[in-house]
Protein backbone atom coordinates (compact mmCIF):
# COMPACT_ATOMS: atom_id res chain seq x y z
CA UNK A 1 0.00 0.00 0.00
CA UNK A 2 2.74 2.45 1.05
CA UNK A 3 4.75 1.73 -2.04
CA UNK A 4 1.94 2.43 -4.48
CA UNK A 5 1.79 6.04 -3.28
CA UNK A 6 5.29 6.80 -4.44
CA UNK A 7 5.82 7.62 -8.10
CA UNK A 8 7.63 4.75 -9.78
CA UNK A 9 6.95 4.94 -13.47
CA UNK A 10 8.24 7.57 -15.82
CA UNK A 11 4.83 9.17 -16.37
CA UNK A 12 4.80 9.77 -12.61
CA UNK A 13 8.43 10.75 -12.36
CA UNK A 14 8.85 13.29 -15.14
CA UNK A 15 7.72 16.24 -13.00
CA UNK A 16 10.75 15.65 -10.77
CA UNK A 17 13.14 15.51 -13.69
CA UNK A 18 11.57 18.68 -15.06
CA UNK A 19 12.13 20.35 -11.68
CA UNK A 20 15.74 19.17 -11.57
CA UNK A 21 16.46 20.22 -15.16
CA UNK A 22 17.22 23.94 -14.72
CA UNK A 23 19.57 23.23 -11.82
CA UNK A 24 21.35 20.38 -13.57
CA UNK A 25 21.64 22.51 -16.69
CA UNK A 26 23.16 25.26 -14.55
CA UNK A 27 25.78 22.93 -13.04
CA UNK A 28 26.66 21.47 -16.44
CA UNK A 29 26.94 24.87 -18.12
CA UNK A 30 28.76 26.84 -15.46
CA UNK A 31 30.76 24.12 -13.72
CA UNK A 32 31.35 21.27 -16.15
CA UNK A 33 31.76 23.05 -19.50
CA UNK A 34 34.52 25.20 -17.92
CA UNK A 35 36.31 21.97 -16.99
CA UNK A 36 36.58 21.15 -20.70
CA UNK A 37 38.38 24.46 -21.09
CA UNK A 38 41.23 22.93 -19.12
CA UNK A 39 42.46 21.20 -22.29
CA UNK A 40 43.71 24.62 -23.35
CA UNK A 41 46.48 24.11 -20.78
CA UNK A 42 47.91 21.59 -23.25
CA UNK A 43 47.43 23.83 -26.28
CA UNK A 44 48.71 27.14 -27.55
CA UNK A 45 45.41 28.94 -27.73
CA UNK A 46 44.86 31.19 -30.67
CA UNK A 47 41.60 33.13 -30.72
CA UNK A 48 41.55 32.97 -34.52
CA UNK A 49 41.76 29.19 -34.66
CA UNK A 50 39.47 28.59 -31.68
CA UNK A 51 39.68 26.07 -28.90
CA UNK A 52 39.49 22.95 -31.05
CA UNK A 53 41.93 23.89 -33.80
CA UNK A 54 44.62 25.53 -31.71
CA UNK A 55 47.82 23.47 -31.86
CA UNK A 56 48.74 20.99 -29.14
CA UNK A 57 51.90 21.80 -27.23
CA UNK A 58 51.90 18.95 -24.71
CA UNK A 59 53.35 19.90 -21.36
CA UNK A 60 55.20 22.98 -22.63
CA UNK A 61 53.03 25.35 -20.62
CA UNK A 62 53.64 23.39 -17.44
CA UNK A 63 57.37 23.22 -18.09
CA UNK A 64 57.43 26.95 -18.63
CA UNK A 65 55.46 27.58 -15.45
CA UNK A 66 57.52 25.35 -13.17
CA UNK A 67 60.71 26.68 -14.75
CA UNK A 68 60.16 30.28 -13.73
CA UNK A 69 60.94 31.85 -10.39
CA UNK A 70 57.31 33.05 -10.44
CA UNK A 71 56.19 29.58 -9.45
CA UNK A 72 58.13 29.58 -6.18
CA UNK A 73 57.11 33.11 -5.35
CA UNK A 74 53.42 32.32 -5.93
CA UNK A 75 53.63 29.10 -3.95
CA UNK A 76 55.37 30.84 -1.07
CA UNK A 77 53.00 33.80 -0.98
CA UNK A 78 49.89 31.65 -1.24
CA UNK A 79 50.97 29.17 1.43
CA UNK A 80 52.29 31.86 3.79
CA UNK A 81 48.96 33.67 3.87
CA UNK A 82 47.15 30.37 4.50
CA UNK A 83 49.65 29.41 7.19
CA UNK A 84 49.37 32.76 8.95
CA UNK A 85 45.59 32.45 8.89
CA UNK A 86 45.94 28.98 10.34
CA UNK A 87 48.13 30.03 13.25
CA UNK A 88 46.54 33.40 14.02
CA UNK A 89 42.97 33.60 12.71
CA UNK A 90 42.00 30.01 13.51
CA UNK A 91 43.06 29.94 17.20
CA UNK A 92 41.54 33.39 17.68
CA UNK A 93 38.18 32.03 16.50
CA UNK A 94 38.41 29.19 19.05
CA UNK A 95 39.43 31.68 21.75
CA UNK A 96 36.43 33.90 20.95
CA UNK A 97 34.09 30.89 20.99
CA UNK A 98 35.37 29.85 24.41
CA UNK A 99 34.89 33.40 25.70
CA UNK A 100 31.33 33.61 24.39
CA UNK A 101 30.59 30.17 25.77
CA UNK A 102 31.63 31.26 29.26
CA UNK A 103 29.31 34.27 29.31
CA UNK A 104 26.55 33.52 31.77
CA UNK A 105 24.45 36.59 31.13
CA UNK A 106 22.21 35.56 28.20
CA UNK A 107 21.37 39.10 27.06
CA UNK A 108 25.01 40.15 26.99
CA UNK A 109 25.91 37.03 25.02
CA UNK A 110 23.23 37.66 22.39
CA UNK A 111 24.12 41.32 21.96
CA UNK A 112 27.85 40.64 21.61
CA UNK A 113 27.20 37.81 19.14
CA UNK A 114 25.03 40.12 17.04
CA UNK A 115 27.87 42.63 16.96
CA UNK A 116 30.72 40.26 16.09
CA UNK A 117 28.73 38.47 13.34
CA UNK A 118 27.92 41.67 11.47
CA UNK A 119 31.17 42.28 9.52
CA UNK A 120 30.83 38.86 7.88
CA UNK A 121 27.99 40.21 5.73
CA UNK A 122 29.85 43.22 4.42
CA UNK A 123 31.50 43.01 1.01
CA UNK A 124 35.27 42.92 0.72
CA UNK A 125 35.06 46.28 -1.06
CA UNK A 126 33.45 47.82 2.01
CA UNK A 127 36.10 46.23 4.23
CA UNK A 128 38.73 47.61 1.87
CA UNK A 129 37.14 51.06 2.07
CA UNK A 130 37.15 50.95 5.86
CA UNK A 131 40.77 49.78 5.79
CA UNK A 132 41.72 52.80 3.68
CA UNK A 133 39.90 55.15 6.02
CA UNK A 134 42.01 53.80 8.87
CA UNK A 135 45.31 52.74 7.32
CA UNK A 136 45.45 54.96 4.22
CA UNK A 137 47.98 57.79 3.79
CA UNK A 138 45.51 60.27 5.31
CA UNK A 139 43.78 57.74 7.52
CA UNK A 140 43.22 57.91 11.27
CA UNK A 141 46.19 55.74 12.21
CA UNK A 142 48.64 57.82 10.21
CA UNK A 143 47.11 60.98 11.61
CA UNK A 144 47.79 59.90 15.18
CA UNK A 145 51.18 58.46 14.28
CA UNK A 146 52.07 61.89 12.99
CA UNK A 147 50.61 63.72 15.95
CA UNK A 148 52.07 61.53 18.69
CA UNK A 149 55.20 60.00 17.19
CA UNK A 150 56.11 62.33 14.34
CA UNK A 151 55.96 59.46 11.92
CA UNK A 152 53.82 57.72 9.38
CA UNK A 153 53.68 54.32 7.76
CA UNK A 154 52.86 53.23 4.24
CA UNK A 155 50.54 50.48 5.36
CA UNK A 156 48.87 49.95 2.00
CA UNK A 157 51.85 50.23 -0.33
CA UNK A 158 54.57 48.29 1.41
CA UNK A 159 55.66 44.68 1.53
CA UNK A 160 56.01 44.40 5.27
CA UNK A 161 52.50 45.57 6.19
CA UNK A 162 50.59 43.54 3.63
CA UNK A 163 50.38 40.23 5.51
CA UNK A 164 49.58 41.70 8.95
CA UNK A 165 46.83 43.82 7.39
CA UNK A 166 45.33 40.93 5.46
CA UNK A 167 45.27 38.68 8.55
CA UNK A 168 43.78 41.48 10.62
CA UNK A 169 41.06 42.03 7.99
CA UNK A 170 40.23 38.32 8.01
CA UNK A 171 39.89 38.30 11.78
CA UNK A 172 37.81 41.46 11.82
CA UNK A 173 35.48 40.23 9.12
CA UNK A 174 35.06 36.54 9.87
CA UNK A 175 36.30 35.51 13.33
CA UNK A 176 32.90 36.25 14.88
CA UNK A 177 31.06 34.30 12.22
CA UNK A 178 33.53 31.45 12.61
CA UNK A 179 32.47 30.96 16.23
CA UNK A 180 29.02 29.69 15.18
CA UNK A 181 30.16 26.19 14.39
CA UNK A 182 32.23 25.96 17.60
CA UNK A 183 29.36 27.28 19.69
CA UNK A 184 27.13 24.60 18.17
CA UNK A 185 29.69 21.98 19.16
CA UNK A 186 30.02 23.51 22.63
CA UNK A 187 26.26 23.37 23.11
CA UNK A 188 26.46 19.62 22.59
CA UNK A 189 28.68 18.99 25.61
CA UNK A 190 26.87 17.27 28.44
CA UNK A 191 26.35 19.78 31.31
CA UNK A 192 26.63 16.98 33.85
CA UNK A 193 30.35 16.87 33.13
CA UNK A 194 30.69 20.43 34.41
CA UNK A 195 28.62 19.64 37.49
CA UNK A 196 30.86 16.68 38.25
CA UNK A 197 34.00 18.74 37.75
CA UNK A 198 32.63 21.41 40.06
CA UNK A 199 31.92 18.85 42.77
CA UNK A 200 35.50 17.68 42.42
CA UNK A 201 36.62 21.25 43.01
CA UNK A 202 37.76 22.17 39.48
CA UNK A 203 38.13 25.86 38.68
CA UNK A 204 36.51 27.36 35.57
CA UNK A 205 39.86 27.38 33.78
CA UNK A 206 40.39 23.75 34.66
CA UNK A 207 36.91 22.83 33.33
CA UNK A 208 37.69 24.62 30.08
CA UNK A 209 40.94 22.71 29.74
CA UNK A 210 39.65 19.28 30.75
CA UNK A 211 36.05 19.32 29.52
CA UNK A 212 35.33 22.11 27.02
CA UNK A 213 38.38 21.77 24.78
CA UNK A 214 38.28 17.95 24.59
CA UNK A 215 34.55 18.30 23.89
CA UNK A 216 35.16 20.26 20.70
CA UNK A 217 38.33 18.45 19.67
CA UNK A 218 36.54 16.70 16.80
CA UNK A 219 35.21 19.98 15.40
CA UNK A 220 38.62 21.61 15.72
CA UNK A 221 40.33 18.76 13.88
CA UNK A 222 37.78 18.75 11.04
CA UNK A 223 37.92 22.52 10.55
CA UNK A 224 41.69 22.53 10.77
CA UNK A 225 41.91 19.86 8.08
CA UNK A 226 39.37 21.68 5.94
CA UNK A 227 41.54 24.78 6.11
CA UNK A 228 44.67 22.79 5.35
CA UNK A 229 42.81 21.31 2.40
CA UNK A 230 42.12 24.79 1.06
CA UNK A 231 45.65 26.16 1.56
CA UNK A 232 46.03 26.76 -2.16
CA UNK A 233 43.04 29.11 -2.14
CA UNK A 234 43.77 32.50 -0.75
CA UNK A 235 40.84 34.79 -0.28
CA UNK A 236 41.08 36.13 -3.78
CA UNK A 237 38.65 39.03 -3.45
CA UNK A 238 40.48 40.34 -0.41
CA UNK A 239 43.94 39.97 -1.98
CA UNK A 240 42.76 41.42 -5.30
CA UNK A 241 41.64 44.59 -3.54
CA UNK A 242 44.63 44.94 -1.24
CA UNK A 243 47.27 44.40 -3.88
CA UNK A 244 49.19 47.07 -5.79
CA UNK A 245 52.48 47.30 -7.63
CA UNK A 246 54.36 48.17 -4.45
CA UNK A 247 53.42 45.08 -2.49
CA UNK A 248 53.30 42.60 -5.36
CA UNK A 249 56.34 40.71 -4.00
CA UNK A 250 54.23 39.42 -1.11
CA UNK A 251 50.68 39.79 -2.43
CA UNK A 252 50.98 37.88 -5.69
CA UNK A 253 49.10 34.60 -5.20
CA UNK A 254 48.04 31.98 -7.74
CA UNK A 255 44.60 33.44 -8.38
CA UNK A 256 45.96 36.94 -8.83
CA UNK A 257 48.61 35.70 -11.23
CA UNK A 258 45.93 33.88 -13.25
CA UNK A 259 43.93 37.10 -13.41
CA UNK A 260 46.88 39.18 -14.60
CA UNK A 261 48.15 36.67 -17.14
CA UNK A 262 44.74 35.61 -18.43
CA UNK A 263 42.44 38.59 -18.30
CA UNK A 264 44.94 41.43 -18.58
CA UNK A 265 47.56 39.93 -20.90
CA UNK A 266 45.10 37.59 -22.67
CA UNK A 267 47.51 34.69 -22.42
CA UNK A 268 44.67 32.22 -21.88
CA UNK A 269 46.61 28.98 -22.24
CA UNK A 270 49.28 29.90 -19.73
CA UNK A 271 46.74 31.29 -17.25
CA UNK A 272 44.68 28.10 -17.54
CA UNK A 273 47.84 26.06 -16.91
CA UNK A 274 48.44 27.92 -13.67
CA UNK A 275 44.77 27.67 -12.68
CA UNK A 276 44.75 23.96 -13.44
CA UNK A 277 47.83 23.37 -11.34
CA UNK A 278 46.05 25.11 -8.49
CA UNK A 279 42.79 23.16 -8.93
CA UNK A 280 44.56 19.79 -9.05
CA UNK A 281 46.79 20.62 -6.08
CA UNK A 282 43.67 21.72 -4.14
CA UNK A 283 41.86 18.51 -5.04
CA UNK A 284 44.76 16.43 -3.76
CA UNK A 285 44.95 18.49 -0.56
CA UNK A 286 41.21 18.21 0.11
CA UNK A 287 41.17 14.45 -0.48
CA UNK A 288 44.30 14.12 1.66
CA UNK A 289 42.74 16.16 4.44
CA UNK A 290 39.64 14.00 4.37
CA UNK A 291 41.74 10.84 4.47
CA UNK A 292 43.71 12.22 7.42
CA UNK A 293 40.47 13.05 9.26
CA UNK A 294 39.31 9.48 8.87
CA UNK A 295 42.67 8.13 10.02
CA UNK A 296 42.27 10.19 13.17
CA UNK A 297 38.98 8.49 13.81
CA UNK A 298 36.85 11.51 12.92
CA UNK A 299 33.88 11.28 10.64
CA UNK A 300 35.62 12.96 7.75
CA UNK A 301 34.27 15.72 5.60
CA UNK A 302 32.58 13.42 3.13
Amino acid sequence: MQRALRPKRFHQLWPFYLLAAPGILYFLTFHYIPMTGLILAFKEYSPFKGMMDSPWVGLDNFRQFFGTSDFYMLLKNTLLISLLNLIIYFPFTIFLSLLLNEVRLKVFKRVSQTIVYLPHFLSWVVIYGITISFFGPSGVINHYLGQWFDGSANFLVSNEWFRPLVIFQSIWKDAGWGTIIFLAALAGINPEQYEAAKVDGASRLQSIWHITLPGIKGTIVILLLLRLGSSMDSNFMQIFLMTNSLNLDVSNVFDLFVYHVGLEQFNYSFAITVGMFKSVASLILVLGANYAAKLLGEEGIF
Partner: protein
Amino acid sequence: MKLKATWFDTIIVVIICLISLLVILPFLYIIAVSFSPPGDSMAGNFFIWPKHWTLDAYSYLLNANTFLTSVKNSVIITAMGTVLSLFVSITLAYALSKKFLPGRRIMLLVIFFTMIFHGGMIPNYLVVKNLGLIDSYWAVVLPAASSAFNIMVIRSFFQSLPESLDEAARIDGAGEFRILYSIVLPLSKPIIATFTLFFMVQFWNEFFSAVIYLNDTSRWPIQPLLRQMVAISASNISAEAAVDASLAANLGPNVQNAAILLAMLPIVIVYPFLQKYFAKGAMLGSIKE
Protein backbone atom coordinates in the same frame (compact mmCIF):
# COMPACT_ATOMS: atom_id res chain seq x y z
CA MET B 1 21.09 28.70 40.81
CA LYS B 2 21.97 32.30 41.50
CA LEU B 3 24.46 33.96 39.22
CA LYS B 4 27.34 35.29 41.24
CA ALA B 5 29.82 37.28 39.21
CA THR B 6 33.39 36.26 39.89
CA TRP B 7 36.61 37.88 38.72
CA PHE B 8 36.57 35.29 35.95
CA ASP B 9 33.20 36.53 34.63
CA THR B 10 34.42 40.11 34.85
CA ILE B 11 37.52 39.43 32.77
CA ILE B 12 35.48 37.63 30.12
CA VAL B 13 32.94 40.43 29.87
CA VAL B 14 35.70 43.03 29.64
CA ILE B 15 37.51 41.16 26.83
CA ILE B 16 34.30 40.65 24.86
CA CYS B 17 33.42 44.32 25.30
CA LEU B 18 36.83 45.30 23.92
CA ILE B 19 36.42 43.01 20.91
CA SER B 20 32.90 44.33 20.25
CA LEU B 21 34.21 47.86 20.50
CA LEU B 22 36.87 47.04 17.91
CA VAL B 23 34.08 45.91 15.57
CA ILE B 24 31.85 48.93 16.18
CA LEU B 25 34.40 51.75 16.19
CA PRO B 26 35.13 51.66 12.44
CA PHE B 27 31.40 52.04 11.73
CA LEU B 28 31.08 55.01 14.04
CA TYR B 29 34.13 56.60 12.47
CA ILE B 30 32.83 56.08 8.92
CA ILE B 31 29.51 57.64 9.90
CA ALA B 32 31.21 60.58 11.60
CA VAL B 33 33.46 61.36 8.62
CA SER B 34 30.57 61.13 6.19
CA PHE B 35 28.69 63.84 8.10
CA SER B 36 31.69 66.16 8.49
CA PRO B 37 33.04 68.78 6.10
CA PRO B 38 36.19 67.47 4.36
CA GLY B 39 38.53 69.85 6.20
CA ASP B 40 37.51 68.48 9.58
CA SER B 41 38.44 64.90 8.93
CA MET B 42 41.69 65.92 7.27
CA ALA B 43 42.60 67.66 10.48
CA GLY B 44 41.58 64.52 12.31
CA ASN B 45 40.42 66.49 15.29
CA PHE B 46 37.56 64.20 16.05
CA PHE B 47 37.04 60.51 16.03
CA ILE B 48 33.45 59.43 16.38
CA TRP B 49 31.56 62.66 16.92
CA PRO B 50 31.63 65.26 14.13
CA LYS B 51 32.54 68.79 15.14
CA HIS B 52 30.44 70.33 12.40
CA TRP B 53 27.55 68.49 10.82
CA THR B 54 26.88 68.59 7.11
CA LEU B 55 24.87 66.58 4.64
CA ASP B 56 27.02 67.70 1.70
CA ALA B 57 28.42 64.24 1.00
CA TYR B 58 25.00 62.67 0.82
CA SER B 59 23.41 65.37 -1.27
CA TYR B 60 26.40 65.17 -3.61
CA LEU B 61 26.15 61.38 -4.01
CA LEU B 62 22.39 61.42 -4.42
CA ASN B 63 22.82 63.89 -7.28
CA ALA B 64 25.72 62.08 -8.95
CA ASN B 65 24.46 60.17 -11.97
CA THR B 66 27.23 57.60 -11.94
CA PHE B 67 26.48 56.72 -8.36
CA LEU B 68 22.73 56.51 -8.85
CA THR B 69 23.17 54.35 -11.94
CA SER B 70 25.31 51.94 -10.00
CA VAL B 71 22.70 51.69 -7.26
CA LYS B 72 20.07 51.01 -9.90
CA ASN B 73 22.27 48.30 -11.46
CA SER B 74 22.84 46.74 -8.06
CA VAL B 75 19.13 46.66 -7.36
CA ILE B 76 18.42 45.00 -10.73
CA ILE B 77 21.23 42.45 -10.30
CA THR B 78 20.16 41.69 -6.75
CA ALA B 79 16.51 41.20 -7.74
CA MET B 80 17.34 39.07 -10.79
CA GLY B 81 19.92 37.03 -8.93
CA THR B 82 17.77 36.37 -5.88
CA VAL B 83 14.74 35.22 -7.89
CA LEU B 84 16.81 33.05 -10.21
CA SER B 85 18.89 31.51 -7.41
CA LEU B 86 15.81 30.70 -5.37
CA PHE B 87 14.13 29.10 -8.38
CA VAL B 88 17.10 27.01 -9.52
CA SER B 89 18.13 25.94 -6.01
CA ILE B 90 14.69 25.08 -4.67
CA THR B 91 13.52 23.09 -7.71
CA LEU B 92 16.73 21.06 -7.91
CA ALA B 93 16.97 20.52 -4.14
CA TYR B 94 13.32 19.43 -4.05
CA ALA B 95 13.76 16.86 -6.82
CA LEU B 96 16.92 15.54 -5.16
CA SER B 97 15.16 15.22 -1.80
CA LYS B 98 13.00 12.43 -3.24
CA LYS B 99 14.67 9.15 -2.36
CA PHE B 100 12.60 7.24 -4.91
CA LEU B 101 13.92 9.24 -7.87
CA PRO B 102 16.09 7.07 -10.14
CA GLY B 103 19.37 8.76 -11.03
CA ARG B 104 19.39 10.77 -7.82
CA ARG B 105 22.77 9.51 -6.66
CA ILE B 106 24.53 10.35 -9.90
CA MET B 107 23.02 13.85 -9.92
CA LEU B 108 24.16 14.39 -6.33
CA LEU B 109 27.63 13.21 -7.26
CA VAL B 110 27.76 15.58 -10.23
CA ILE B 111 26.81 18.48 -7.97
CA PHE B 112 29.03 17.48 -5.09
CA PHE B 113 32.12 17.15 -7.28
CA THR B 114 31.92 20.89 -8.11
CA MET B 115 32.71 21.56 -4.46
CA ILE B 116 36.17 20.07 -4.73
CA PHE B 117 37.14 20.65 -8.34
CA HIS B 118 36.49 23.46 -10.78
CA GLY B 119 37.75 24.75 -14.08
CA GLY B 120 38.90 28.04 -12.62
CA MET B 121 38.72 31.70 -13.51
CA ILE B 122 39.74 31.70 -17.18
CA PRO B 123 37.62 28.73 -18.36
CA ASN B 124 34.65 30.31 -16.57
CA TYR B 125 35.35 33.57 -18.31
CA LEU B 126 35.54 31.87 -21.72
CA VAL B 127 32.17 30.16 -21.14
CA VAL B 128 30.48 33.42 -20.18
CA LYS B 129 32.09 35.10 -23.17
CA ASN B 130 31.11 32.35 -25.61
CA LEU B 131 27.52 32.49 -24.38
CA GLY B 132 27.54 36.16 -25.41
CA LEU B 133 26.80 37.36 -21.89
CA ILE B 134 29.58 39.95 -21.64
CA ASP B 135 28.20 43.38 -20.69
CA SER B 136 24.80 42.02 -19.71
CA TYR B 137 23.47 41.64 -16.18
CA TRP B 138 23.15 37.91 -16.86
CA ALA B 139 26.95 37.61 -16.81
CA VAL B 140 26.91 38.52 -13.13
CA VAL B 141 23.74 36.62 -12.28
CA LEU B 142 23.86 33.30 -14.17
CA PRO B 143 27.30 31.93 -13.16
CA ALA B 144 26.41 32.50 -9.49
CA ALA B 145 22.88 31.04 -9.70
CA SER B 146 23.53 28.29 -7.20
CA SER B 147 26.16 26.22 -5.47
CA ALA B 148 26.57 22.68 -4.22
CA PHE B 149 26.44 23.97 -0.67
CA ASN B 150 23.05 25.67 -1.20
CA ILE B 151 21.61 22.54 -2.77
CA MET B 152 22.81 20.35 0.11
CA VAL B 153 21.34 22.62 2.80
CA ILE B 154 17.97 23.16 1.12
CA ARG B 155 17.70 19.48 0.25
CA SER B 156 18.31 18.40 3.83
CA PHE B 157 15.50 20.73 4.90
CA PHE B 158 13.07 19.20 2.39
CA GLN B 159 14.05 15.74 3.56
CA SER B 160 13.10 16.66 7.10
CA LEU B 161 9.48 17.24 6.04
CA PRO B 162 7.21 14.21 6.63
CA GLU B 163 6.81 12.07 3.54
CA SER B 164 3.27 11.11 4.44
CA LEU B 165 2.28 14.66 3.59
CA ASP B 166 3.01 14.25 -0.13
CA GLU B 167 1.43 10.83 -0.12
CA ALA B 168 -1.78 12.11 1.36
CA ALA B 169 -1.88 14.86 -1.24
CA ARG B 170 -1.24 12.34 -4.01
CA ILE B 171 -4.17 10.22 -2.82
CA ASP B 172 -6.30 13.33 -3.02
CA GLY B 173 -5.19 13.63 -6.62
CA ALA B 174 -2.83 16.59 -6.42
CA GLY B 175 -0.14 16.81 -9.10
CA GLU B 176 3.53 17.04 -8.17
CA PHE B 177 3.84 20.75 -9.00
CA ARG B 178 0.72 21.43 -7.00
CA ILE B 179 2.19 19.56 -4.02
CA LEU B 180 5.39 21.57 -4.21
CA TYR B 181 3.62 24.88 -4.63
CA SER B 182 0.70 24.54 -2.20
CA ILE B 183 2.05 22.20 0.45
CA VAL B 184 5.84 22.04 0.54
CA LEU B 185 6.70 25.70 -0.09
CA PRO B 186 4.38 27.13 2.58
CA LEU B 187 5.97 24.71 5.06
CA SER B 188 9.44 25.80 3.98
CA LYS B 189 9.17 29.46 4.91
CA PRO B 190 12.14 29.41 7.32
CA ILE B 191 14.55 27.98 4.77
CA ILE B 192 13.20 30.19 1.97
CA ALA B 193 13.55 33.28 4.14
CA THR B 194 17.09 32.27 5.04
CA PHE B 195 18.15 31.80 1.47
CA THR B 196 16.32 34.86 0.15
CA LEU B 197 18.39 36.98 2.50
CA PHE B 198 21.49 34.93 1.80
CA PHE B 199 21.15 35.49 -1.97
CA MET B 200 20.30 39.18 -1.56
CA VAL B 201 23.49 39.73 0.42
CA GLN B 202 25.51 37.70 -2.08
CA PHE B 203 24.34 39.64 -5.13
CA TRP B 204 24.44 43.04 -3.48
CA ASN B 205 28.07 42.36 -2.52
CA GLU B 206 28.99 41.04 -5.98
CA PHE B 207 32.16 42.69 -7.14
CA PHE B 208 34.59 40.61 -9.12
CA SER B 209 32.29 39.21 -11.80
CA ALA B 210 31.18 42.78 -12.49
CA VAL B 211 34.80 43.82 -12.94
CA ILE B 212 35.62 41.05 -15.39
CA TYR B 213 32.32 40.61 -17.24
CA LEU B 214 31.09 44.20 -17.52
CA ASN B 215 33.38 46.32 -19.69
CA ASP B 216 30.57 48.81 -20.09
CA THR B 217 30.92 50.70 -16.81
CA SER B 218 27.41 52.15 -17.10
CA ARG B 219 26.30 48.60 -16.17
CA TRP B 220 28.47 48.51 -13.08
CA PRO B 221 26.82 47.78 -9.75
CA ILE B 222 27.85 49.68 -6.66
CA GLN B 223 30.77 47.56 -5.40
CA PRO B 224 33.24 48.10 -8.29
CA LEU B 225 32.35 51.79 -8.38
CA LEU B 226 32.96 52.07 -4.65
CA ARG B 227 36.31 50.39 -5.10
CA GLN B 228 37.33 53.00 -7.64
CA MET B 229 36.12 55.81 -5.45
CA VAL B 230 38.18 54.70 -2.44
CA ALA B 231 41.21 53.42 -4.37
CA ILE B 232 41.84 56.89 -5.73
CA SER B 233 42.77 58.09 -2.27
CA ALA B 234 44.72 54.99 -1.29
CA SER B 235 47.47 55.40 -3.80
CA ASN B 236 47.64 56.84 -7.22
CA ILE B 237 49.54 53.75 -8.19
CA SER B 238 46.61 51.40 -8.04
CA ALA B 239 43.95 53.83 -9.16
CA GLU B 240 42.87 53.34 -12.71
CA ALA B 241 41.18 55.99 -14.76
CA ALA B 242 38.11 57.04 -12.87
CA VAL B 243 34.76 56.07 -14.31
CA ASP B 244 33.50 59.57 -14.06
CA ALA B 245 35.94 62.47 -13.98
CA SER B 246 33.57 64.81 -12.17
CA LEU B 247 32.88 62.18 -9.54
CA ALA B 248 36.59 61.71 -8.96
CA ALA B 249 37.30 65.43 -8.77
CA ASN B 250 34.91 65.87 -5.87
CA LEU B 251 36.08 62.97 -3.79
CA GLY B 252 36.66 64.24 -0.30
CA PRO B 253 36.91 61.80 2.58
CA ASN B 254 33.32 62.65 3.46
CA VAL B 255 32.06 61.57 0.03
CA GLN B 256 34.11 58.39 0.09
CA ASN B 257 32.92 57.40 3.52
CA ALA B 258 29.33 58.27 2.68
CA ALA B 259 29.65 55.96 -0.33
CA ILE B 260 31.02 53.17 1.88
CA LEU B 261 28.09 53.66 4.21
CA LEU B 262 25.49 53.66 1.42
CA ALA B 263 27.05 50.51 -0.08
CA MET B 264 26.61 48.67 3.21
CA LEU B 265 23.29 50.22 4.16
CA PRO B 266 21.04 47.50 2.63
CA ILE B 267 23.09 44.86 4.47
CA VAL B 268 22.78 46.70 7.76
CA ILE B 269 19.03 47.01 7.15
CA VAL B 270 18.43 43.32 6.39
CA TYR B 271 20.91 42.21 9.06
CA PRO B 272 18.42 42.12 11.96
CA PHE B 273 16.25 39.77 9.89
CA LEU B 274 19.28 37.74 8.85
CA GLN B 275 20.53 37.38 12.39
CA LYS B 276 17.44 35.44 13.44
CA TYR B 277 17.82 32.82 10.73
CA PHE B 278 21.46 32.65 9.86
CA ALA B 279 23.01 30.98 12.86
CA LYS B 280 20.48 28.19 12.43
CA GLY B 281 20.98 28.07 8.68
CA ALA B 282 24.74 27.83 9.01
CA MET B 283 24.38 24.92 11.39
CA LEU B 284 21.89 23.20 9.12
CA GLY B 285 24.69 22.96 6.59
CA SER B 286 26.80 20.91 8.95
CA ILE B 287 24.08 18.38 9.67
CA LYS B 288 24.72 15.11 7.90
CA GLU B 289 22.12 12.94 6.32
